[in-house]
């Protein structure tokens, strides 16, 4: 990285070449540096300052607020509600996503023909824009006349009021999330294809059954992909916004029940409906701390269980 000591003995040409190279390098990366200073680092500092103030957009004035915005995080019951909703959704969605994605990937990995076709079929929903997905599920999940409940009625099950009954609001969103599970599936598929088949052969010679082979070979060998997927899906679940907004919070009226009030939704409402930027910034920082904490915990736990190729 730095100019090596042996070059300082003969300055001049060598050093100027190095300098020219460094200048060229800095020029090439300058777009990112500018963007980072303004839209990331600058924005983070700005956000921190605003979170300690009462900010008025109309007049562009800020009064110092001390810790008032942060105190409100613990006093406002809706913050707790939205946090609990988000946690509940994450705990519900992530395991289902992992199980379905891994199950489909293993199915695909075990057929000798047609895997490409099925992979494409499973991937199409992932290509469907969120707004299209949400608008079709708005009708599909309609409690009285929706296609899903009609289908359930045909086999003698009375479907719930998916989008109205608070108990079914989160499962509705999980259902939409599961429909786009192909991204996770394909990562599992890539991992499964890298498992050396000698391992299975040896296990089979030793008389291990399919379940045993899955538990003792497949799972350890794909533990890296499993860890990656759990981490990524958890972080995504904590930021759930689009689906919940489109289904329950489109209009300004607070018609939606608190069951669909997720953290990102409440933050959005505080910032762009109430224009309480100070409080919204404090909420943003709380989310940041929570996501970092969860990631660190998962990395810690993951390191104990994940098998890395290099450890052989």
């Amino acid at each position, binding site marked *: *990285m*730095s100019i090596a000591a042996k070059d300082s003995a003969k300055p001049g040409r060598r050093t100027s070449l190095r300098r020219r*190279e*460094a200048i060229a390098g800095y020029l*090439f*990366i300058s*777009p*990112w540096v500018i*963007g*980072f200073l*303004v*839209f*990331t680092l*600058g924005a*983070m500092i700005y*956000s921190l300052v605003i979170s300690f103030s009462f900010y008025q957009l109309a007049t562009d004035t800020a009064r110092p607020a001390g810790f008032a915005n942060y105190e409100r995080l613990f006093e406002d019951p809706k913050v707790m509600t939205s946090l609990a909703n988000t946690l509940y959704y994450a705990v519900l969605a992530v395991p289902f996503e992992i199980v379905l994605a891994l199950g*489909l990937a293993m*199915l695909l*990995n*075990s*057929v*000798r023909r*047609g*895997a490409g076709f*099925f992979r494409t079929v*499973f991937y*199409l*929903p*992932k290509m*469907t824009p969120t707004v*299209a*997905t*949400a*608008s*079709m599920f708005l009708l599909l999940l309609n409690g009285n006349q929706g296609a899903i409940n*009609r289908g359930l009625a045909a086999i003698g099950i009375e479907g719930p009021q998916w989008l109205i009954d608070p108990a079914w609001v989160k499962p509705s969103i999980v259902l939409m999330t599961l*429909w786009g599970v192909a*991204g996770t599936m*394909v990562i599992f598929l*890539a991992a*499964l294809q890298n498992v050396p088949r*000698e391992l*299975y052969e040896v296990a089979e010679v030793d008389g291990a059954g*399919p379940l045993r082979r*899955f538990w003792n070979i497949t799972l350890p060998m794909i533990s890296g992909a499993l860890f990656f997927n759990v981490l*990524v899906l958890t*972080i995504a679940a904590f*930021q759930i916004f689009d689906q919940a*907004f*489109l289904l329950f919070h*489109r*209009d300004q009226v607070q*018609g939606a029940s608190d069951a669909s009030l997720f953290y*990102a939704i409440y933050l*959005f409402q505080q*910032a*762009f409906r109430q224009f309480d930027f100070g409080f919204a*910034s404090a*909420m943003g920082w709380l989310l940041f701390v929570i996501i970092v904490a969860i*990631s660190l915990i998962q990395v810690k736990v993951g390191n104990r269980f994940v098998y890395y190729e290099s450890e052989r």
Partner: protein
Amino acid sequence: MVAQTPIKTVQAAAAIAAESPEPDTDRRKRRKWFGDARGQALTPMGWVGQIVRWVLLLLFAALFMYPLAWLVAASLKPRGEVFDNKLIPDTIMPENYAVAFDEMPLANWIGNSIWIAVLAAVLVAVSSSLVAFGFAYYRFPGRGVLFGIVLATMMLPGAVTLVPQYLIWNQLGFVGTNVPLWGANLFGSAFYIFLQRQFFLGLPRELFEAAKLDGVSAWGQFWRIAMPLSVPSFVIILLFEFQASWNNLQAALIYLNTGSQEGYTVPLGIASAMTKYSPTNGGQGDYQYVMVAAVLVTIPMLILFAFGQKSFITGIATTGRKG
């Protein structure tokens, strides 16, 4: 504000990376989860297992495809039937499409979305390539630390910078225009920088050494050697960012919601249409027009997918590397 969380992009990248076709011989050699151990001809029991799996896969395929098939059907139904679960409508109304264009400024929305997505994709692909080239080929003090920061920003949740970015765009006077939907792309995006750098590192350095000896400037080396060679990964970035921009609801809500309907992007337009036709808002429940819009917003993505799969396979064929 780059539209998509890096997280989703990483998923998509891994997804595309796994799209590579394996030749049949490979598929046959590969050890299956359970089944024939040495990829030999299937025993009768093996065939039974295969058929059971195909049935399961077909079942899942039907479940996954039903909503899409239903969507196309719903867009052709009259108001009274739009909720039903038939895939072949009783009354087929292609005129829904024409009416939808009269009911909503659909053409404007699609035009806006395409224009913004193309701009966002091209800008971010070029700027990320420039930055990646700097990180891949030049030694300068602080390079390791800076690249570490690039990777760290991939983990930053958008919620932290949402408010200040809005205030920055507000100070610059761009709230109410679509500039914030692509402006930040001028500065590259962490995940794409990472992707392009990986690609550049895989190119033989000798190419650039030789060009340097021939007196080609750094700028020339980038445009005349690095860019033509990196077309495959460049196309991947274009596709990802186009999709991210096409899906971007939150930014449109924040920056365009105050403007006129004609300035909306498709996601924002459809969101407003969902509300407009809702009976609770005094609408008639004419959801078939929303379904028309949903079909129209999905088609470009399916085209992109057909095209993207191909381009990526070409990329793998030319580089011999997966992703």
